[in-house]
């Protein structure tokens, strides 16, 4: 059970993000660097929230406080990361090797940084659990939920995808000064995190989180200029049409798969 469970859960959680990475990002050096840099920013956010958490561990429900603060901290760092990208746009223009797609199409960078945030957060929430699954022990003997690992994997996947969509929505909201959309991102993040506070009531949490994921995904898809027509175009293989018709920003590939 252990090895099989390890691979199964690892692939549930990280299969889709890794294939998104391999198809849309790994081929492009700048996107890869941006991915690493954005995950570094997420790490910084986590570090700050951990510092605060360790300061308030004496509190009664410090963990809840830590979760809420960490969510706000992540959104703050998402904003800082956005500011940094804005500053570095001139430099990006230079390093982009004549291919200005990444500068002119804001959605690509938003998608890349969202995936960076998502992958690192998913990794941090799941790798240690996965490493323990392989070990000599097994889970669920002492009345604990025996589907702990599978539930963790599915929730991690939801959060990774959520981070991707939040990234797209967030950047778009700032560009269009749509503050309602910005508020949606922050509140949705808070809501999703707070729902997981109800774990291990998996029958409630997992569907709710996935509903939020699908909702955010649809919103991000619309915001990025997607429509049924673009899906059709994408699947019929005329990806060029997709780019021409939506000059405001073609939909990053890998997104319509959701």
């Amino acid at each position, binding site marked *: 059970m252990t090895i099989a469970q390890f691979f199964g859960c690892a692939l549930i959680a990280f299969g889709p993000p890794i294939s998104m990475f391999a198809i849309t990002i790994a081929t492009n*050096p*700048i996107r*890869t*660097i941006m991915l*690493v*840099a954005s*995950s*570094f920013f997420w*790490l910084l956010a*986590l*570090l700050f*929230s*951990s*510092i605060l*958490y*360790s300061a308030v561990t004496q509190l009664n429900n410090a*963990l809840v406080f*830590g*979760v809420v603060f*960490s*969510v706000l901290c*992540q959104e703050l760092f998402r904003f800082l990361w956005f500011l940094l990208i804005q500053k570095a746009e001139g*430099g990006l223009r*230079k*390093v*982009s*090797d*004549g291919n200005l797609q990444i500068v002119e199409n804001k959605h690509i960078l938003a998608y890349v940084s969202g995936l960076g945030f998502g992958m*690192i*957060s998913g*990794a*941090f*929430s*799941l*790798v*240690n*659990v996965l*490493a323990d699954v392989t070990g000599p022990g097994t889970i669920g003997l002492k009345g604990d939920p025996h589907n*702990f690992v599978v*539930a*963790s994997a599915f*929730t*991690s996947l939801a*959060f990774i995808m959520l981070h991707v969509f939040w990234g797209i929505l967030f950047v778009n909201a700032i560009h269009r000064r749509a503050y309602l959309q910005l508020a949606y991102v922050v509140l949705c993040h808070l809501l*999703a*995190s707070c729902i*997981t*506070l109800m*774990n*291990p009531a998996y029958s409630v949490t997992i569907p709710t989180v996935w509903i939020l994921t699908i909702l955010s995904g649809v919103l991000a898809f619309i915001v990025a200029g997607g429509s049924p027509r673009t899906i059709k175009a994408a699947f019929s293989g005329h990806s060029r049409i997709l780019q021409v018709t939506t000059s405001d920003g073609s939909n990053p590939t890998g997104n319509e798969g959701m």
Partner: protein
Amino acid sequence: MQPAASRFDGGLALDDEAAISNNHLQGDGQQDKARQSNRGSEGRVRGEQEQVTRGHGGTRGHTHVPEPGENSQSAGEWKEREEEEEELKYGAQHVIKVFIPVSLCMLVVVATVSSVTFYTEKGAYLLYTPFHEESQSIGDKVYDALRNALILLCVVVVLTIVLILLYKKRCYKIIHGWLLMSSLLLLFIFTIMYMMELLRGYNIGIDWITVSICVWNFGVMGMVSIHWHGPLRLQQAYLIFIASLMSLMFIKYLPEYTLWMVLAVISIWDLIAVLSPKGPLRILVETAQERNEPIFPALIYSSNIMYSTLGMAEPDGNLASSRSRGRQPVQDDTATVGDAPVEGQAGVQRDGDTTRRRMVENGHVAVETVDGDSGFTEEWALHRDERALRRREQVNSHVRHHPPNVEYPQPHPRDLAAEEEEERGVKLGLGDFIFYSVLVGKASSYGDWNTTIACFIAILIGLCLTLIMLAIFKKALPALPISIAFGLIFYFSTSLLVVPFTEQLASEQFYI
């Protein structure tokens, strides 16, 4: 294990020296520019000359046609900026070309450390770390670690200075012997050890004959491909493997606190050695540039072709690739024609130079890629001769004191198409690979993957920043300080602050 370990100590001294002595990053841009400006006349490049030649260097591989008046000052400046942008343009690919080997090296180390218990067991220690941190109090442990680290640093400093002295005195045979010995040790004995521990860890039985045949073939192929020829990928793979073996040795044979202290101390030493005006590694790099030689291939990972071979470097392949880049390969007559009058004026015929030219003329690879018709004006050629003359004079005075090493086994990559290939590579010392992997491997040896991932990301970001600085400053930079500082900060902050938080979150299944 004990006698064996003490035997390895000697080898390790050589090896860690070999590795450490080169942990610096080096942009090829500058070196090759220097090389190019020296084409035909080898010699030292003075600052102002480089300034001048840099303006022309920018025209290489660039599609625009230079105006006739390009020698004027403003045009030169404009060129310089143009070139800067061009270097930035390829920057992203280079970052990835360095990311991948560094990640692979770390992957080998982390996978080994977390699957084979041998490398995390304590017991045997290096000769250089006499203090074994057996006391209980943290203060004593840190004190022991500091003393160990300083001893190790002294060894490193002394061996680096010995290497520089040997290089300065052109004792190439000794240096090559040294490098051959250390890679021999790594490729055979350490490989056998690694293989044994791997087999033991996975409980696989293989007879000695098979093992010895495998190791023999592996080691000989490694020696050949590192020190002589071999496909680039194979050479890179061997260098990565050597680096990971070395870092596994450090992880195994250094006490815990000492290891962290060594990382800190070595990166400070790296900073001093590369950047201070009299730093040994800086002297090494400058001397190598002066002599137009590549730094020893056993010490440096290059993202592009690094070893310099005349005969078997597949001239056709190079020709095709340079053609595909839109340059025009022409026969190697520019250098000789351009130099002939200069040589006559300079009067002194130098053995070394002619020997080397003969090699090129003999047509092993008589292909040189220059922008044949893309506007090197006569005016420029004139200036070029002047510059060449000036350089030649300097060189002659230099060479009179130091006779050139005619019997140096590896001819230089001058006037070769390979130079073009090499132009856009980034070089990273093997020492950097080793210490990055040591940090990540040690972080993973405590069994916490969050810390490992945090260190990995921090080191990559540090490397990225170093490469950006390389594009800005355009000189050899130490690659350790930023990355190791980031790595150490993230290791300690993650394991002390973040892990309690994330562990709690993961066990309660709260997601942030």
